[in-house]
């Protein structure tokens, strides 16, 4: 067997995310590629949390409903997930508190005997799982030693007890592939921004974007980053614009509600031409919605946010490599074109865990903005052919650098004069034409699956994982626009060449990508929409697809 789906469940506070990650890391050491989905309600203690780890030979980007192993810390886990079991599935459970069939391990008794903390029950369960799955203890030991910082020895002792308690039911094959780093989408975005020269990150906590704040704050010293958490999202974006104006490559991150507060700042960035990168991780709305679940329902909001007309660059990556790559592109483009760049993701991508193959990502470097050559007196908004005005940064003894939210002349001095208004609006919008040309160099729309198929699944962002895998089974084509603004019409049309039927797959209730491509003259034949806060599993998408292709 070389394709596993493992679910571990318990209540909040049981360390389910961490336990899922440990299982993922164990398979990683065996040469498997990992995708992990973590499902949790918005509370600190209690409720029901679970992680589904997929370990496969080839990379995947979605979870399965069916599972091979169910790891059970409480009765809820059995009750809620029984339906996922196949005939061959194995249940490993805490026999001190759970009624079930399968391999029972007295977790509570063991941790009491070992004087371990309650949270180490999951280490004991992982020990039992490794034995049952035929995974050598030394792999577990190696992973625990590297990734558990607190009470590592104690956790190992408890895991060993679990290992001895269970019986071996199968053998897990070792694959001859090297282990890869396992990162969340948020972490991949952070590293991509750093690669593009990020020096300051400013954010107010909001699920599911907070992982990026936490990650960058944790590694801030290593990368000499300034990571700031101010009073609210309004302060976040305004501080960020001050920082960018003073020459620091600055990014911010939030989710829908926080982005609402940022829109006046976004529009200010458009007018003042101060670069800024904004990461928006979607969750279901309207309003508070479901904070810890997923959705793709803010596409048009983010695409159109902010008063007035201005150019924005917007990307929606579909996995960790794309998140890494396009975050670097986003920060480079923001600085070279002096426009806001938005990285639009969702909870599924932000908090999902992926095997990350950095080597498969095209090499990119930090790109410098257009700088003033000091030949003519400095004008912050010099009206050039491309619309891009050369930058200078404070302090510069030869330049007075004035930026302005008000309509302004080339010096940045306020004006309400009619001719100047349209000249400067043309200047700002002209940048978009050059950006569209430059974007031809990038693979802004991706294609997967059977490229000769006349049926195409259309997806954006995190639904890529489910679409690509499903399309392979059905022999379909997948078309995934990554750049959503300015919309890459030419590449999109090319990728669709020969397609007779387009089926859009989205995590929202109205088909927002459909609406976007309609605006550009493309029609969609079918929509497969899911808006229950949960991402598509492979089986769910397969079932929905069968209904529309017959």
């Amino acid at each position, binding site marked *: 067997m070389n394709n596993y789906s493992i679910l571990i469940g318990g209540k909040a506070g049981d360390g389910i995310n961490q336990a899922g990650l440990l299982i993922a890391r164990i398979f990683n050491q065996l040469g498997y590629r990992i995708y992990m989905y973590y499902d949790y309600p918005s509370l600190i203690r209690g409720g029901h949390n679970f992680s589904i780890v997929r370990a496969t030979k080839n990379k995947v980007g979605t979870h399965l409903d069916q599972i091979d192993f169910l790891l059970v810390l409480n009765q809820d886990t059995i009750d809620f997930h029984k339906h996922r079991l196949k005939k061959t599935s194995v249940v490993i459970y805490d026999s001190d508190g759970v009624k079930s069939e399968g391999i029972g391990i007295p977790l509570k008794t063991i941790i009491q005997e070992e004087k371990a903390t309650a949270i180490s029950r999951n280490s004991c369960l992982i020990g039992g799982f490794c034995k049952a799955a035929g995974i050598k203890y030394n792999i577990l030991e190696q992973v625990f030693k590297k990734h558990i910082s607190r009470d590592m020895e104690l956790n190992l002792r408890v895991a060993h007890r679990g290992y001895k308690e269970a019986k071996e039911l199968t053998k897990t094959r070792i694959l001859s592939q090297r282990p890869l780093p396992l990162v969340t989408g948020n972490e991949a975005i952070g590293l991509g921004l750093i690669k593009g020269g990020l020096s300051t990150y400013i954010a107010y906590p909001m699920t599911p974007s907070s992982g990026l704040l936490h990650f960058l704050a944790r590694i801030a010293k290593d990368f000499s980053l300034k990571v700031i958490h101010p009073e609210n999202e309004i302060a976040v974006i305004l501080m960020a614009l001050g920082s960018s104006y003073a020459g620091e490559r600055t990014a911010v991150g939030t989710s829908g509600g926080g982005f609402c507060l940022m829109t006046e700042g976004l529009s200010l960035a458009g007018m003042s031409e101060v670069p800024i990168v904004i990461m928006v991780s979607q969750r279901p709305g309207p309003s508070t919605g479901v904070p810890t679940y997923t959705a793709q329902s803010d596409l048009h909001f983010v695409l159109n946010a902010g008063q007035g007309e201005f150019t924005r660059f917007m990307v929606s990556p579909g996995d960790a490599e794309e998140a890494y790559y396009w975050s670097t592109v986003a920060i480079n483009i923001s600085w070279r074109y002096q426009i806001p760049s938005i990285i639009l993701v969702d909870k599924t991508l932000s908090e999902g865990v992926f095997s990350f193959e950095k080597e498969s990502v095209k090499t990119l470097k930090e790109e410098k903005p257009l700088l003033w050559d000091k030949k003519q007196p400095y004008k912050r908004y010099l009206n050039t052919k491309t619309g891009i005005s050369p930058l200078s940064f404070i*302090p510069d003894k030869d330049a007075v650098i004035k*930026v302005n939210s008000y309509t302004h002349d080339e010096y940045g001095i306020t004006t309400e004069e009619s001719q100047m208004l349209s000249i400067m609006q043309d200047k700002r919008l002209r940048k978009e034409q050059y950006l569209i040309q430059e974007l031809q160099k990038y693979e802004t729309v991706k294609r997967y699956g059977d490229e000769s198929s006349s049926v195409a699944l259309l997806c954006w962002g995190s639904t890529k994982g489910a679409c690509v895998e499903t399309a392979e089974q059905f022999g379909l084509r997948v078309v995934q626009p990554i750049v959503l603004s300015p919309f890459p019409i030419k590449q999109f049309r090319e990728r669709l060449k020969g397609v007779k039927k387009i089926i859009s797959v989205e995590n929202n209730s109205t088909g927002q990508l459909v609406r976007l491509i309609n605006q550009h003259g493309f029609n969609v034949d079918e929509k497969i929409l899911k808006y229950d806060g949960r991402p598509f599993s492979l089986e769910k998408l397969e079932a929905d697809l069968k209904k529309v292709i017959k």
Partner: protein
Amino acid sequence: MNQKQLATSAKNTWCPGCGNFAILNAIKTVLTVLNEEGFPLDRIVLVSGIGCHAKIVDYVDVNSFYAIHGRVTPVAEGIKLANPDLKVIGFAGDGDAYGEGLEHLVFAAKRNIDITMIVHNNRVYGLTTGQYTPTSPLGFKGRSTPSGTAELPLNPLELMLASGATFIARGYSNRLDLLKKTFKEAIMHKGFSLIDVLQPCVTFFDIYEYYNKHVYELTDHDSQNYETASKKIREWDYNSDNPIALGTFYKKESSSFEERFLEHKTKTIDKYSKIKETLTKYI
């Protein structure tokens, strides 16, 4: 360098007699003096919001960020954190600083970040043609409150003291020399400084005569002492007819946010190899 050299091509559009002229005059004088004393003007940044006050950045030929209503403070903070060698001076109206963007002021004071906020307090919205502001007196008849306001004004200086500001002063546009002196002192102060400048709006709320009768300059005042500062700040609540003190109420030496925050942030790194190194921890 003289005041004239600090001028820009922009035509001044404030009403004749507007209190903003005094603030413009004072800041130009102070910048000229700072420059003469050896502080290069290219390390000065002015930030403004939206309202009559905000035009001030168009009238001074130094670096500036003409921002949006209520957001002068966070922009100024972001600039300072990007480069602590800069002197960042924010100009905001009373509607701007005490209404739309009050929360930022409280937090900047709490952080004691080294920026200077100069509030053009005319106690009325001018550009939007005469509505009450957070510091308008009770019963103020404006265009949104034709029968008079039903709420008391805020004492912004009391709020700043409670929030942790380490330099708090009040100026009056009709006391130019004191204004210049206070601006200089505030700009040179390390930490968060705020000067509330009473600056009558000749069109919508002309109270020059009232101020002329009520203001006095603080003398023999212990500005290092929180209790005496607090007492003096509370003497006039922006509503009563009590005497109105001008000058520096409170001044305290304390470490600033950027000093504490930026301690480890200056080394240069090879980010490409460091990314590789970071990723090995995730295997």
